[in-house]
């Protein structure tokens, strides 16, 4: 399956791209995805070890199981207002 990873603000700048499509085994969790991303090397290794994550625009935990086509956003500490 494939998921789309979205990066914002400082995360985006560290990695150098605003989004990436990642192939994962079916049944992978958010945690699996994060591990895979760090394995990509480069700026991906500079991401914090446990970023907040949203799956399909809702905050989600590391245990969340992903599905094909999911949109997974790595959410830096928020600073709205």
């Amino acid at each position, binding site marked *: 399956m494939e998921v789309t990873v979205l990066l914002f603000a400082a995360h985006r*700048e560290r990695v150098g791209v605003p989004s990436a499509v990642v192939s994962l085994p079916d049944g992978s969790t958010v945690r699996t995805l*994060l591990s895979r991303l760090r394995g990509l090397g480069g700026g991906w290794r500079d991401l914090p070890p*446990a970023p907040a994550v949203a799956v399909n625009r809702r905050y989600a935990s590391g245990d969340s199981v992903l599905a094909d086509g999911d949109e997974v956003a790595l959410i830096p500490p*928020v600073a709205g207002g």
Partner: protein
Amino acid sequence: MTWSDITTSPIDPSAVLARVGTPGDGAVALFLGTVRNANHGRPVGGMEYEGYRRMARDELAAIVSEAAARAGSDRVAAVHRLGELAVGETSVAVAVSTPHRAEAFEAARHVIEEIKKRLPVWKREHYLDGEAEWLEGRVPVGAGGCDAAGHGGVNRR
């Protein structure tokens, strides 16, 4: 009806006020967040707001709905602006009207506090010395955080 929006256009406080208020309400509270000309004593020339726009729309709508339920009023409106803002410009506006004042104050405060805790928005301060920095934010409430080393995250609330 509640109302919320994420926009790149300038925010007009009067237009936000016009979203609330009914003949049965005796109190209106409005909050505006504006771009300051300094932070920790360092002169600021402007602020750049980035957002995860589609999620921010959903999250702001949820915050407004929660505030409306708490206040017992559906006259709750909030808008957050994204993009490049100059000093003095309004980045966020919240308006609430209720029959009595305590609820209006409480709900307006609640909305801005939740925005700061949960809205997927980030800001980069542009200093007059030419540098720019992403402001330190808060780990969003509602996000368990995820640990790639396998220590587990909490469930979404």
